[in-house]
């Protein structure tokens, strides 16, 4: 499902990721392809078990060891296939070419070092140089992510900071190596709404200043609407729909996307009853040969249940709109 463009910074092709459990190998990412361009924000949307976080961990090559492994596909970053790099080479990619912001700022930072030390360490690892020279740059990074009173906070320990402030520091660490791509896995889930809004604006400002690409993983469609240029919707380890945010939100073509958009309670108007998708997402160990959404899909027929749907252009013909469905555009 890749939009083949010249300036794609990161291009994932037919990625397959497996977890080796005692009960056998299960495919958690089942042939995922997407790309993201410089200065672009791509949203990856899905529920728990959809494979969105496993996709991110695969790109960073930080799958849980020893059970996780990339079973196939390619991850192209500036002409190199990350899947083929050695661990040592990959260590140099992380932080320098790809930055990562995780969900919980309380566990991303080391509690026994000051945030300043952790920033300086990140700078040493990514750009090298003596500690003394890096202090000023670390404070500069803290200012870039709007940490007020950065000179004093440089000496603070994580527990002395609020969640929003810690997440800013995590953002500063991910910026240390001036990465081309930042992968953010639900970075605002642990933050309050007014702080979340500040943080999303910060990400936009950083992108505006540095031209970095952002892959933003979330289950919150409101954030996607606010922040992202394009999105991919994942279900049971596959991409079921891809396109520009405007396109997908205005004319969603996959029944799952339609249902997801319908089931969100609206902030901007009152409804008496919410649309509810029946059933629950499938266990990844129990996926059959047909479309994995078929058991919950109001449109499913025999073909849907027996054959995996091909990826086709969206029925509205919008650029880059693709959908994996036997009946694209039929759900309301």
């Amino acid at each position, binding site marked *: 499902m890749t939009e083949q463009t010249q300036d794609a910074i990161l291009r994932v092709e037919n990625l397959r990721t497996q977890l080796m459990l005692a009960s056998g190998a299960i495919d958690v990412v089942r042939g995922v392809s997407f790309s993201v361009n410089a200065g672009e924000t791509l949203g990856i949307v899905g529920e728990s078990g959809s494979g969105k976080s496993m996709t991110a961990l695969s790109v960073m090559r930080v799958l849980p060891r020893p059970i996780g492994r990339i079973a196939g596909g390619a991850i192209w970053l500036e002409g190199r296939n990350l899947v083929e790099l050695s661990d040592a080479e990959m260590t140099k990619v992380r932080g320098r070419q790809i930055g990562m912001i995780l969900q919980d700022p309380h566990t991303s930072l080391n509690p026994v070092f000051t945030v300043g030390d952790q920033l300086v360490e990140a700078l040493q690892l990514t750009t090298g140089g003596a500690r003394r020279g890096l202090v000023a740059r670390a404070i500069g990074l803290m200012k870039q992510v709007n940490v007020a009173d950065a000179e004093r906070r440089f000496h603070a320990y994580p527990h002395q900071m609020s969640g929003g402030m810690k997440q800013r520091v995590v953002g500063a660490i991910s910026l240390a190596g001036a990465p081309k791509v930042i992968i953010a896995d639900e970075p605002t889930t642990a933050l*309050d709404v007014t702080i979340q809004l500040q943080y999303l604006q910060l990400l936009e400002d950083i992108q505006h200043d540095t031209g970095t690409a952002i892959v933003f993983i979330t289950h919150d469609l409101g954030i996607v609407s606010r922040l992202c240029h394009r999105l991919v919707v994942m279900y049971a380890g596959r991409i079921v729909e891809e396109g520009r945010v405007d396109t997908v939100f205005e004319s969603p073509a996959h029944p799952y996307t339609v249902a*997801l958009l319908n089931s969100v*309670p609206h*902030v901007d108007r009152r409804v008496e009853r*919410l649309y*509810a998708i029946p059933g*629950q997402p499938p266990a990844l160990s129990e996926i059959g040969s047909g479309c994995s959404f078929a058991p919950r899909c109001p449109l499913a027929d025999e073909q849907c249940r027996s054959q995996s749907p091909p990826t086709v252009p969206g029925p509205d013909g919008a650029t880059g709109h693709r959908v994996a469905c036997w009946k694209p555009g039929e759900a309301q």
Partner: protein
Amino acid sequence: MTQPILEIRNLTRHFEVATGGMFSSKRGIVRAVEDVNMSLERGQTTALVGESGCGKTTLARMLLRLIEPTSGQVLVEGQDISTLSGGALRRFRMGVQAVFQDPWASLSPRMRVFDIVAETLVINERLTKGELTRRVDEALISVGLRPDMARLFPHEFSGGQRQRIAIASAIIARPSLIILDEPVSALDVSIRSQIMNLFKDIQAEYKCSYVIVAHDLGTTRFMADRIAVMYLGRLVEEGQTETIFESPRHPYTRALLSAALPIRRGGEKARMTLKGEVPSPLDPPGGCPFHPRCPQFIGDVCTTTLPPMLRDGQGHAVACHLHPDTNRMAVVQTNKEMT
């Protein structure tokens, strides 16, 4: 007017905390809930809204008598719950139930669903085995589970189903008031709407009232008849849900609503981004607690004087110096001086 199911009068809770180092004896006071007044009509839902540290969970816990207030009262069906003991306390424990956020933490992994759901009745009522089974079956059916699932353990269920079990155990004693503390935040998007519809069905069937603590404004708009907005332990605005969403008066409420991200673009109002963060409840600012972040700060009055909560004829109350209408009645003035 009939007696409200719940009345909260000047409710205040302070916590004493150590503020020095590990061996210091320095103590500070966290003003978690400060002089809150509100009431809830029978069969209605009120939502407590605010950011972390605003006191909404402490308030909810005082309603359950899991935390005793420092001062003020909670009246359920006209009775001050702090005075209850013996049989009256047991009736209160049956009549006021709770559903918590995390269905992985709130259900005992070593109890079967039957025992989890039946527990309230086993403790508080003497029922025959047959009667108990009938009540458990009925509760499970009400929440969309099958009676034969009663013999299973919680780990055999998905998150959404576990929350249904928690709801079944809350409704089995036919409570008049259920406290819902972030009841859908731990669930997946596609499961949330099922559970939120279920809460509405249960309310229609059992005529119970809800107090819901939620940070997601879409959830509160769907669930609640009234909204109470809290900031640093105080109520800053309270009124009908539609009034609050359509014409919020307090600048904090406006900022909170504007931080919510609707899923459709277009026709967006200008967003109001607040500067800074919520101050520490150990040392709340003087005057209006919101004044250091307020985009509509009007001057000295904001820094020196706590704005009283004033209610208009439609029952919309707001505590802000921008809205000093003299024809509105002060709800209950801070009565520190009087006591």
